[in-house]
């Protein structure tokens, strides 16, 4: 590059005494990043301790979690973790949803989803055409996965309350089919979340820029979009 070449058009623009457009927000503003990682921690605590509680009296006799993936050396400890982690999960989750609704972020990022887009994206993903040049728009599969995990998280809180308070919230527990039925729903919700986690972690590792984005904020999302 020669220093004597004429300066391109862009510089005059910067020198214009007009109001600069406001700096666009990062893809993942700080509150989102904080809540994301708090949620990750909360989910690991709830799942690990939940497995410990499950093992104490299994629902399916062919499913038993080995001690080294459980959180809590035995039932009492697993329960302590579970009833502590629930506060982090619920409060952080509520804050996330509130933030997402108030800022409009939930709607902008996750809706709408068109079936056509979903089919195309699934096909591309299966062929490993992971298009991630633009981190700022979620493809249809992403949107669906995030909606599913949010709903599963809410389901876990609701079914968890039904298990924890089957008399005080007896109406809720009855709605879920009784205590044992609520327990089953709680287990199935966990399975959905674990399934999500496997996919989510795998994909974020396959496209490490997404991971970096959730740590440092990622590219800026312009007003033009």
């Amino acid at each position, binding site marked *: 590059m020669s220093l004597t070449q004429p300066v391109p058009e862009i510089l005059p623009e910067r020198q214009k005494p007009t109001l600069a457009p406001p700096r666009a927000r990062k893809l993942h503003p700080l509150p989102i990043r904080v809540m994301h990682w708090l949620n990750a921690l909360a989910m*690991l605590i709830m799942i690990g301790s939940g497995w410990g509680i*499950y093992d104490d009296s299994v629902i399916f006799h062919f499913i038993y979690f080995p001690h080294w993936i459980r959180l809590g*050396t035995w*039932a*009492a400890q697993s*329960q302590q973790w579970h009833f502590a982690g629930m506060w982090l999960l619920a409060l952080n989750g509520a804050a996330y949803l509130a933030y997402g609704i108030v800022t409009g972020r939930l709607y902008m990022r996750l809706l709408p989803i068109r079936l056509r887009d979903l089919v195309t994206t699934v096909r591309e993903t299966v062929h490993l055409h992971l298009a991630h040049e633009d981190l700022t728009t979620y493809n249809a599969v992403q949107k669906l996965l995030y909606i599913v995990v949010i709903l599963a998280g809410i389901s876990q809180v609701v079914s968890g309350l039904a298990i924890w308070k089957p008399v005080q919230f007896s109406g809720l527990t009855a709605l879920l089919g009784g205590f044992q039925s609520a327990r089953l729903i709680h287990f199935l919700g966990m399975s959905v979340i674990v399934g999500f986690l496997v996919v989510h972690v795998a994909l974020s590792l396959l496209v490490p820029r997404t991971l970096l984005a959730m740590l440092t904020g990622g590219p800026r999302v312009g007003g033009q979009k």
Partner: protein
Amino acid sequence: MMMSLFRPASPPDLAILDNHRPLIRSLSRRGLFRGTFSLGALVALTGCDVSNDASVQSALRAVSAWNDKVQAWLFDPKKLAPTYPASMVQKPPRFNAYYDIEHVKPVDGRDWKLEVSGRVADRSPWTIERLAALPQYDEIIQHICTEGWSYIGEWSGPRLSDFLDRVGADTRARYLYFTTADDYPTSIDMPSARHPQTLLAMTYARQTLADPFGYPVRLRTSTKIGYKNAKWLTSIEVTNEYKPGYWEKRGFNWFNGL
């Protein structure tokens, strides 16, 4: 492409980017990220070391004590537990204890008495006959164990609240503390003790309680987890002193209301 004050006059040859790609790739794969997501780290997070740390343990117990307060606030003394038809009563009921069935020590009902102490007006002990003379209530409710299993059972006996009134208990006292023939103390809060479905149960499925199930008297609540419902009662104390029961001393939650 990122905007920068230092953007070159003309874009660099794309070949330069090719040279840098391996560096960028290696940056993102450095231990910084690997450590956060590896199975090793997950194991470290979920393994025994974290759980058994003393400060972690005391923090968890502090949260459990906080949960006691929350549960006490959630408890509605007027809310009755669901009841069920007699056809659903499990016969025989399910047995559990902190020891095996072979070690159950039956109580001789003929010289058994229920001792009464603490903040009460009348400390005279109660015989089976005296208890049986109180108004009897029958309930078919769900027993839920902290392990996760449950069953429908039928118990009858006098209401604990009637008993407390008869002995002139201080109903503003905070706790009821029970001792048992098998060294399995338990304590519950006064509001739960006065709940209409809290009984001093003497029968199961309309038959006298069998030896393994707490003969002659067991505590039967509808609003507490299974392990709070002590069997083979030997004494009741009305007190303002918090005394943890058998399983609470081992880390389980004290209030544990349903």
